[in-house]
């Protein structure tokens, strides 16, 4: 009995050994010669294959970097939005432009509270489809539809729909700014913007270019195109697109002045420190803004800007 066992083990073991040796030699003979730098470059990249770089995956970007480095001596124009390309450059013995970390920003605050629903939607759960069917639950034709196409497409699990507000929330720890969500959104609400120095950024949280009178019909925090922010900005960073204010991230120095003067509370200044209390009557985290925006807007804004532990100046 044990004889059989020993013989079986021996036969199988030897067979396994012979096959392993054969496989090793075959693997060596048919090995595809690849530049080992590609592996090293790929190791610096996230590996999510999100396509934000414009290539079909992290390995394709690594290959392109190695190729361009060999041909031109630089890796200009090739960038993974979520990685400091300096690391890849170092692997290749080069230098790269400074890394500007980016993050996706949802430019709509038309939550269920700010833009109460006027109709009941019963179609397929796809934003791209709902966009063709109606303007949106709250009536704003440029607002977020809340069905989560962006959430489904995110490769980094950085988006989820907040149940209370109905809006997508970006997780700043996971988002790399690859831009897939921005391309997916049928209304172009999501924008990839630089994270800014000290992770501070200011943006207009509205995408509606209609006249102010139409905007207020449907949403209490939409931009009405009054241009107060434009006049206030000391760096001429704000331009009007239709009746919508837009802050150019290249010019914006994140001073936060525009956010203070916006009468609708449409401009969000993220990760700014809380204002020093001017009077003892002030409660904890409640910001003082002049003029006072609608009280219902406050808790919502605090919630939607989860990325800041400090409050938002609205």
């Amino acid at each position, binding site marked *: 009995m044990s004889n059989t066992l020993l013989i079986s083990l021996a036969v199988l073991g030897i067979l396994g050994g012979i096959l392993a040796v054969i496989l090793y030699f075959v693997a060596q003979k048919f090995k595809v010669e690849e530049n080992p730098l590609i592996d090293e470059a790929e190791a610096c990249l996230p590996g999510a294959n999100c396509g934000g770089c414009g290539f079909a995956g992290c390995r394709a970007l690594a290959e392109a970097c190695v190729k361009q480095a060999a041909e031109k001596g630089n890796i200009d124009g090739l960038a993974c939005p979520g990685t400091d390309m300096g690391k890849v450059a170092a692997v290749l013995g080069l230098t790269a432009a400074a890394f500007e970390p980016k993050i996706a920003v949802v430019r709509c605050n038309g939550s269920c509270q700010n833009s109460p629903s006027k*109709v*009941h*939607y*019963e179609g397929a759960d796809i934003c791209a489809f709902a966009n063709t*069917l109606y303007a949106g639950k709250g009536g704003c034709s440029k607002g977020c539809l809340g069905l989560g196409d962006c959430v489904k497409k995110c490769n980094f699990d950085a988006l989820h729909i907040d149940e209370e507000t109905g809006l997508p929330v970006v997780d700043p720890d996971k988002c790399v700014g690859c831009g897939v969500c921005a391309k997916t959104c049928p209304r172009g609400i999501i924008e990839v913007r630089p994270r800014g120095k000290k992770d501070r950024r200011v943006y207009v949280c509205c995408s509606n270019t209609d006249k102010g009178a139409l905007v207020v019909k449907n949403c209490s925090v939409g931009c009405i195109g009054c241009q107060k922010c434009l006049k206030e900005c000391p760096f001429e960073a704000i331009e009007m697109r239709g009746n919508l204010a837009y802050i150019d991230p290249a010019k914006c120095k994140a001073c936060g002045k525009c956010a203070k003067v916006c009468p609708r509370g449409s401009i969000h200044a993220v990760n700014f420190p809380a204002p020093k209390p001017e009077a003892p009557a002030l409660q904890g985290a409640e910001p003082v803004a002049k003029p006072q925006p609608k009280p219902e807007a406050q808790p919502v804004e605090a919630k939607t800007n989860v990325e800041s532990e400090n409050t938002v100046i609205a």
Partner: protein
Amino acid sequence: MNKYTISGSPHVHSPENTRKIMYRVLLALLPALLVAIYYFGWDAIKLTIVSVGTCILVEWLIQKFLIKGPLTINDGSAALTGLLLAFNVPANLPIWMAIVGSIVAIGIGKMAFGGLGKNPFNPALVGRVFMLVSFPTAMTTWPPVHPLFGGKVVPDAVVGATPLGILKEQGVQKLEELHQMQFLDMVLGNRGGAFGEICAIALLLGAIYLIARKVIDIATPLSILLTVFVFTGICYLIDPTQYIAPWYHLVYGGLILGAFFMATDMVTSPMTTKGKILFGFGIGVITVVIRLWGAYPEGVSFAILIMNAFTPLINKAFKPQVFGVVKPSKK
């Protein structure tokens, strides 16, 4: 002001829904159930209740605790699986085996694939075949019929066997000897077998109702029956001593139950008419092969399961003709 509903067109719907379809099939099986109760009495009732109840319970448990999705036990499909499973077993099967079979049918045959509409194999047949292979003796020991209200009983020597069983083991002669060849008896169900499959008339009544109500398409069952008839007919013509007449093959065993109620399960059968005909043909051929030359006396369950595996391929091969598209002619 009312909140209006925004939805894509169409804004009206036909009165059909899944639940109505399932309940119609259950209704169609009612005559056969009544006949079964008549012939096998309390045993049949017991097994039906246990089988249906276990199926529903297992589906509820899995939906609630494993999948955590919306409850689907109301749509009647679990009950239908339970009833069909019960119809496929001998009336004297121990209860615990029926419970095991139900758990396998729903748990593995249906829910493991994702629930209704996602299973490739007919769940009732998965359960039945599992039981056949796991409990071969219990599944092939048939009680004699004992009609509730007296009535004619087939002579005593028939205890414990189906006509096909006798045919497989002892040949055509024995079948005639044991008076298993009285056609009327066979049709009415006065024979051994699983309690759901014995009465051809009751099953056919239900089948006609389903076809009239457009719940099932006649293509599959017709194709199966014709194929079996033709093939067994050819064999019978070649050698009447070895093979029995084709009309007996139609009523013996679970062919009518299988053809009208199992092979027509929409989830596991092809979508187009041509596909259904091919599907039925395949089932017929495999059934005949197993019956005449295979080890098992009855082959319908295996045949249907094998052809279920081919359904996706058949669906891919037989697509409907698109309006305005002319198939390029082969030069």
